[in-house]
Structures are given as structure tokens and as C-alpha cells.
């Protein structure tokens, strides 16, 4: 058993007996009572032949019905039984040659049949040995032209290299995926599926079908091995086309029922010669594929969820094969071949960058690095960037970014003002300093406003306040958390308080130990009352410092010296006289007797002449003031007056000035 994380590769695991019929012949000799008739027992060693049981398929790569960047990996299928690829003999002289091959065909290169009798699943004229050894009555087959066989199928030498056995740790679920003995056999394809390309050379998705085919009886059809002495090409043109027969699908679309009903061999149309380069514009065809593939994936998904349980597997498989339904045998003149398909699935190669390319192309930096202020790129990086799609240019101006990672964001204050505030999330480009406890205490904010900060540039930094609010709202959004917080406070704080009190009391006076043990029913109420009283007495110690009820007022600078004297002076009587009298008759009587100067409201002491003199004085004062003002304003002109009047609302003084100016 290999260690976790490791696996062992075996070239092949050969079965003791290959599939087929066997006769067990037994004879017993030298028995004393004469010979015993020999016994022939017939044994059939069975093995999958035309269809692969689903439980034998552990995994496929690329995953069925997936789109992705699979262009640099060879498709593979992992089978559960380790001996499966070697259970039938392709060539009796070479038991190491697998009878299974995984071929990958693009849309238009081959045709996948509907269910057909297994006798029809091989090229007509090929005689399969022991045809009675069948695991199923009907199966599907892949029809391919000679061109595609020569272009895509593996050679005999390839087939041998493309199957092996892996022994993995059963506990390593990533490699195992549900096998029981740790041995799996792997069959690999010989083709890197390439995406299609448009006129500009941009990759567009292309759909592929992977088929696990049975090579029995048809090993001679495989392409001949390339001679050793030729010059090999070490590169390929991804835009090349092996064969594209999709142009025929239009004709097929007129009579689809003929094909579906299995009448593909009966050809109502004259044969059309289609060479290796079909008269189909690759680019258009590829674009059509690109637009169609997502619908097909959706159709496959729909089939998988909507069909009944019995029909789902066949419907899904049928939907996957939808791009390979062209009846090519009816249309091409070159030889075509049929191979039984044991398992098939389709996938789409999108041409996206691979994991490695994506990782190498990453823009690396600390948070707060904008794409614009990267260090200059090395020539190698620039060359690399030419080959990947450039990141789109930012559609809006770069954000206001501080050295500390803060971003300037529009902020609407509670009063409704629109201002700019600084914000930074939990990600900082610098190490930050965390508050450390001082004397066992840490500052704790109770509302978010306590965390608002005004920075030297006059703007607010609301990062921490926003964090506080988010934490508060997240807690409030979950009733369970709110409940837990409240319960924690009520139960444990209360219990702790009582326990603590008991301990303190016990410590101070041993007398009352029994009392607290008995849990006197009135004790709780008594403690509560005592506590309230104590708290009311000294709230600053128990709860928090309180604000005084009355704030002291502004000091009066003039109110200095003796208060009595100040009052007496203010009321206009003599303090000394009152004091003198008070010695004889008492303070209250003396104050009552003291005469305070006052003005009789009913008789102000002014007559008509007095009023006239006052009014004249007032008029004179107003006139002199107004004249001074008019002098300062210069000569009154119509323009000046208009401007002033329109600039602000007129008040009483303006009206007065106007009336003065209008006077001659």
C-alpha cells in the first residue's frame, strides 16, 4: 500500500484468463476399476464488451459536459477494475496490448449512432470472434472515415502506451474517488483537444466527444506506425482541420427520421464526394459551434434533471452526442469504419488560459496597489502579456488612495452633508498597532460614534466606526446570537454577582456562613434593596460618574467684595444708615424703614415742553448719524442704491436712509 500522497504505476495487470469460452477437461487415470469417462466443463469468462457498466467508471477527465481550458491535458478515463484493458486479446501474440482505446473527436469528424444491435456495431465484414459473448443486446457505435482514423486514432504502438494501472492509497480520496482495493486502470487519449480560433486568432469554444472504443478485430484499421527514419514535426497548427462533415448536416436535417429509424444505410440521396477538406468555412462553423455549445450544455442539464430515473442515463448520453449525429456513412465515398463505443461523454474546450498561465499572469502586490503603479515590467513579462488577453482598461478614474491603504469615499453625514471620508477595510498594507491593556483594562467602544476619528487633513476616518456597525448588525441579524448574548449577561453575571457577594461576606464575617448556606428567601430582595440604596448613594463608584445636576454659571467679574454693600449700592440706600438703625430696632425693621429711591410711574415728571425737547434732541441725533453714514457712502447715486437694494433685503435703517436721501 503506498503512502498517502504517493501512487505506484504499473504497466499492466494481466488477468489469469482473458474473456471468452473455456472448456475445463478433466480425466482421472489409473483407477483400479477401469477408466472413468472424462468430464468437460464449459466456462465462460465474461467481461464488458460493448458497453461499460457505470460502476466500473470511476472518473473521467475532462469532466463530462464541462467547459474549460483542457487544451494542455490528455483526456482520460479511470476504470475500477485493474485488469479491464487487458481482459480481451487484440493480438493473440501480444497480451500486453490493450483492447480499449480512448479516442477524442471534434464535432463534424465522426458520427455516433443510435442504439443498434451489437452485430451492427462493427464495420460490416469484420467477424468478431465468439459473438455469442455479449454483455448487451444493443449498443452504440462510432462511424469514422478513413481520413479521421488516419488523422486522429492512435497507432498500435500508441495504444500500448496509453493504458496503465495506478496503485493509490485508499485513504487518499483525491486520487481514489471511491475504489475499494486501491488499484485502478487508466486509459488515456492521444489527442490534446484544441479550441477553435476565429479570424483574429482568438480561441473560441469547441466541443469534443470522447469515446472508449473496442478495437477487437479491427487492429489492422489503426493508422500505420510512422517510420522511424522520417523527419518528425514537433509542432502543430491548432487551426488545422482533420475533417469537417458538418456541411452535410443540412441535408440530414431534411430527413432526420431516416437516420433515427436506423435507415441510415439506405441512402435515398446520390452520394456526395466529400474529401478531407470539406467545403465548410471553418471559421463560420466554429463560430456556430461557439454560439451553440452553451445551449447544448443547458439541454443536457435539463435532460438530467427532468427525465425519469430510468430514462435519464440514456437521455443524457443522447443529448451529449447531439453534435455527432451526421449519417456520414451515407454521404462519403471513402471507406468508413464502425467501432463499438463502451462509454462516451462530451466536453467543451474553451481555450481559456491554463492554471499555470493564470498564476504566472497574476498581478501581485500588497493591498492598496493599483494596477497603474506597478514596477516596470521585464521584457519577459511583456512578451508573456502579449499572449494573454489584456485586462480591460479601468472605466472610471482610480480611487483616491492614501499610503495607509485608506480610500476616499463619498460620505453622507447624519445631518445630510455630502463630504468625503476615509475608509479602510480590515486589509492593511502595513502592520497595525493593536491596543494593549493598561492596568488590565482595554478601551471598549459602546457606540460606533466613539470610534470616529478626524485625521489631520480635516476629514473623518470612519473605518473603525463602520466595522463596529457591521459587527453590531451581524450580531443583530442572528436571533440566536442576540439570545446567547442576553442569556450570558443575565444568567452568568447575576449568578456571579451573588456568588461573589457570598464569598466576600463569608470572608469578612464567619458568623453568617450558615445564613448563606440556607438561602434565605428574603435575602435576594434584601441584597437588591441594599444595592440600590448603595448605588443611589454613590453612583459614581457603582455605575459611572454622573453629570452634576446644575452646571456652574459664568463668573461675574464685577461682583466682588462685600455682598451687603453691593446690594445696598444697587438699590440706592445707605448700608451704614441701615446698620446703625438695625442696632436699635433690628435688621428687618431697619430694612423696612430704609427708603429706596424710586420713580412714580403715574407721574414721570415730564411735561409737554420736556417731551418736545427730548424729541428734538433725538431728531438731531438721528440726523447727524444719518449724515455721517451718507458721507461715508459717498454721493448717493442711482446705481449704488440699486445695487445695495437688490443685494439684500431692506431693513428699517435702509428705509430711513432712503427717506433722507429723497428729501431735498
Amino acid at each position: 500500500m503506498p503512502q498517502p500522497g504517493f501512487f505506484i504505476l504499473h504497466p499492466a495487470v494481466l488477468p489469469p484468463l482473458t474473456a471468452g469460452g473455456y472448456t475445463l477437461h478433466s480425466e482421472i487415470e489409473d483407477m483400479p476399476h477401469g477408466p472413468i469417462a472424462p468430464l468437460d466443463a464449459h466456462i465462460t469468462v465474461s467481461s464488458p464488451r460493448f458497453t461499460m457498466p457505470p460502476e466500473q467508471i470511476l472518473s473521467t477527465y475532462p469532466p463530462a459536459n464541462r467547459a474549460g481550458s483542457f487544451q494542455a491535458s490528455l483526456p482520460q478515463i479511470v476504470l475500477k477494475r485493474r485488469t479491464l484493458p487487458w481482459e480481451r486479446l487484440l493480438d493473440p501474440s501480444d497480451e500486453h496490448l490493450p483492447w480499449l482505446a480512448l479516442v477524442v473527436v471534434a464535432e463534424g469528424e465522426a458520427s455516433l449512432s443510435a442504439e443498434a444491435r451489437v452485430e451492427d456495431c462493427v464495420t460490416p465484414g469484420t467477424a468478431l470472434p465468439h459473438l455469442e459473448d455479449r454483455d448487451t443486446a444493443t449498443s452504440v457505435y462510432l462511424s469514422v472515415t478513413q481520413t479521421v482514423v488516419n488523422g486522429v486514432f492512435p497507432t498500435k504502438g500508441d495504444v500500448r502506451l496509453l493504458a496503465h494501472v495506478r496503485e493509490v492509497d485508499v485513504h487518499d480520496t483525491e486520487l481514489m474517488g471511491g475504489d475499494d482495493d486501491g488499484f485502478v486502470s487508466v486509459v488515456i487519449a492521444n489527442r490534446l483537444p484544441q479550441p477553435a480560433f476565429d479570424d483574429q486568432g482568438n480561441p473560441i469554444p469547441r466541443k469534443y466527444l470522447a469515446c472508449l472504443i473496442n478495437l477487437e478485430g479491427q487492429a489492422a484499421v489503426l493508422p500505420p506506425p510512422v517510420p522511424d527514419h522520417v523527419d518528425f514535426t514537433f509542432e502543430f497548427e491548432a487551426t488545422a482541420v482533420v475533417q469537417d462533415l458538418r456541411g452535410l448536416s443540412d441535408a440530414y436535417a431534411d430527413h432526420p427520421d431516416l437516420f433515427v429509424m436506423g435507415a441510415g444505410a439506405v441512402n435515398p440521396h446520390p452520394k456526395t464526394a466529400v474529401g478531407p477538406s470539406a467545403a465548410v468555412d471553418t471559421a463560420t462553423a466554429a463560430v456556430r459551434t461557439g454560439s451553440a455549445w452553451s445551449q447544448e450544455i443547458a439541454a443536457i442539464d435539463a435532460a438530467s434533471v427532468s427525465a425519469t430515473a430510468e430514462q435519464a442515463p440514456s437521455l443524457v448520453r443522447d443529448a451529449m452526442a447531439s453534435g455527432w449525429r451526421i449519417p456520414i456513412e451515407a454521404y462519403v465515398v471513402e471507406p468508413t469504419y464502425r467501432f463499438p463505443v463502451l462509454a462516451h461523454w462530451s466536453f467543451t474546450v474553451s481555450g481559456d488560459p491554463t492554471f499555470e498561465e493564470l498564476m504566472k499572469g497574476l498581478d501581485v502586490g500588497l493591498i492598496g496597489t493599483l494596477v497603474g503603479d506597478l514596477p516596470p515590467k521585464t521584457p519577459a513579462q511583456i512578451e508573456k502579456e502579449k499572449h494573454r488577453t489584456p485586462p480591460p482598461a479601468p472605466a472610471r478614474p482610480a480611487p483616491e488612495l492614501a499610503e495607509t491603504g485608506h480610500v476616499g469615499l463619498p460620505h453622507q453625514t447624519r445631518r445630510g452633508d455630502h463630504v468625503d471620508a476615509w475608509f479602510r477595510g480590515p486589509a492593511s498594507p502595513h502592520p497595525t498597532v493593536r491596543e494593549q491593556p493598561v492596568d488590565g483594562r482595554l478601551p471598549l467602544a459602546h457606540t460606533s460614534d466613539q470610534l470616529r476619528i478626524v485625521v489631520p487633513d480635516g476629514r473623518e476616518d470612519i473605518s473603525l466606526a463602520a466595522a463596529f456597525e457591521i459587527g453590531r448588525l451581524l450580531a443583530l441579524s442572528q436571533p440566536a446570537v442576540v439570545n446567547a448574548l442576553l442569556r450570558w449577561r443575565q444568567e452568568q453575571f447575576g449568578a456571579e454577582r451573588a456568588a461573589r457577594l457570598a464569598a466576600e461576606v463569608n470572608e469578612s464575617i464567619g458568623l453568617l456562613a450558615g445564613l448563606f448556606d440556607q438561602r434565605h428567601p428574603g435575602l435576594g430582595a434584601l441584597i437588591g434593596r441594599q444595592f440600590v440604596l448603595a448605588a443611589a448613594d454613590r453612583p459614581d463608584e457603582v455605575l459611572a460618574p454622573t453629570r452634576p445636576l446644575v452646571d456652574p454659571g459664568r463668573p461675574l467679574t464685577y461682583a466682588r467684595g462685600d455682598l451687603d454693600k453691593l446690594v445696598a449700592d444697587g438699590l440706592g440706600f445707605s448700608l451704614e444708615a441701615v446698620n446703625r438703625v438695625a442696632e436699635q430696632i433690628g435688621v428687618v425693621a431697619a430694612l423696612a424703614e430704609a427708603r429706596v429711591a424710586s420713580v412714580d410711574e403715574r407721574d414721570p415728571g415730564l411735561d409737554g415742553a420736556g417731551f418736545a425737547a427730548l424729541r428734538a434732541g433725538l431728531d438731531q441725533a438721528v440726523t447727524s448719524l444719518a449724515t455721517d453714514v451718507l458721507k461715508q457712502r459717498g454721493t448717493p447715486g442711482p446705481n449704488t442704491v440699486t445695487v445695495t437694494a437688490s443685494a439684500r433685503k431692506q431693513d428699517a435703517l435702509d428705509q430711513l436712509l432712503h427717506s433722507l436721501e429723497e428729501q431735498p
Partner: protein
Amino acid sequence: MTTTSYLQSAEFLSTTVKAVSEVTLAPSDTDDDGEHVVPFDLRQWLARLRLLEGVPFAYLVADSALLPLESIRFFYVDRRWTDALVQGALSVGTVTSDDRSRLEQLYPVVRSEVDDAERRVRPVGGEGAKSASGTITGFLLRSKAVSGWPGMHVRAYDRELPEGDNAIIPEGDTRRLRLLRLERLAPAVLLALFDGIPAIVHIEEPRRGIQFGIRLDASGNPPTTFAPWIPPRDTQDPQKVINAKVPVPCRPGSPGVLDFDHLNKALIARADTHMGAEIDSAEFALEALRFPYRQVFGDVSNPVGRLADVFQPSVRIRAALGEGTRSLVERFETGLS
């Protein structure tokens, strides 16, 4: 002294006041590792909150320009920010000043317990010990790689590994920093948090990607011509890296179809692969298997032990120094003018 008179005495009064005003919670929760003041559920929830679980993405990255397409951004976690999160959560249900003063008494204990719980949120074995620094760092990765390769492996080490970038490091290596959180926030955004300051970070392709992988060198304009190659591997010692390219022969006219028969012969012809002369699909598989790709993030020019030195911030924070030398940045941070 009768019970009643004692309970009304000044001595009892002062004891009561002392008990109430200095209330601290004794350990109440012994569910798991040791004794705790904060109940287990609450502690777990606060720790997850501390690891930014549930925090809206717009609050993690305030502007999309901070995390452009196809980018990775490393950061320090601002502990004051995460502390503010916890304070906000704790403030729920504090109605009276009494609640608040008690919470203030307790807060240092709560904080240190949540610090501890933070490291237990993600149950994993074999990672390095708790970092002494208490600093939490991490990265945000926004890339197609996140959506296309779910389950990628992320490992961080506190120092440069002398074994080299491609060495296989055991899972339980003590230099490895504990991974506090690894989660996809969006289909294409990955958040990772480490307990400590990493010197190098490895991001590795998921292991299920062990297939026959062929490297493709693109050429041409537009680049549609590909030259496939594989790195040869010593079949006696597969860990050994041979710096060479073995070109893979192609079948002319068939895009992507490879001639493995002749590739195998070319590999056998190389002495450094130590392959037998027989055609052996296991040896061939060993050559053609593509191991998961590992991207290493670290300092390329100046291998040092601390990330703080690797990603040179142009202004450093010097908190330990006196008031006079406090940098502008710090004053900015604390809001002092």
C-alpha cells in the same frame, strides 16, 4: 449582631458595593479545551466574526480597483478593525450603564479568549504552532483560476525554504503557518488568512488534476501554432528535476494528435531518464504525468525572513518610539493632529 442588623450595617453595604462593582466572571464554560468565561457558542461565533465571516465584501475591499481582475493582493489584518467588529457585536443588548461598565470590566478577558478561539475555528492537523507575533496576514486572489480549479491548495511558510520551490514538504512541517481561513467569497475570489507573517506562499493546482499534461509553447501571430514538450523525469528518482525539454512529435495535419510511440523512443534514448529498453506504459506514464503546478509567491531578489521586509512599505509604523518620532502615518491612523 443579628442577621438583620448585619445586613444593614455599613460594613455589609461596602462589601455589597465592592462585589457588584468589581464583578468579574469566573470560568463558567468547560465544554472543550480548558475553562472559559465566554460560553462556547458565543466564543465560536465571535472568532468567526473576527475572521471576517459574514462581513460584506464591499467592506473588505472598498473599491474594485484595489482588487483588479487577475490579481492577488497580500495584506495584514488590521486587528483594530476586527476588534471593532467584536465590540460592535458585544454592544448588542447593553441597555444600561451598568451593562456597559460590566462589559468594560470583562472585555480584556473576552478579547484574549476570542484570540485563542480564532485559531481553533478551522480544525486542521499538522500545521505549525501558534505564532508568537499575534499578527494575522492573508491574501485576496481574484482570478479565473479560483473558479476553474476549485479546491486549490494554499500553504504558507514562515521562512524561505532551503529545499527549493518544488520540493515536497510534509504536511506537518513546523515551518508551516496555520491557515486560519480559506474560503471562496465569490466564484472567482479567494480569501486566505494566515496566523503569522509568511515569507513564502505556495498555491498549488488541485491534486485531482493529475493527468497526462503536455506543455505547449505558443508561436505565430496570432499564436495558433503550438510546440508540445514535456520535462523528462528520472524513472529511478522521480523527484529529481531534469531541466530539459523533450519535444513531442506531432501527427502532421491533425491538431493536437501526438505520436507517443516516437516520444517514448526519444525518452528511452535519453540516458538521464534511466528507462528500460522495453516499451513500458508505466515508465512512460511517469514521464508524461504532469504534477500539479505550484506557484510560489515570495521575494525573488532578496530572500529574507520577514514578509514585512519582503513587501517593503515605503512608510513604516514605529509605535514603540516616543511621541516626538511618531510618524505621520501613525498620527494619521490614530487621528492625532
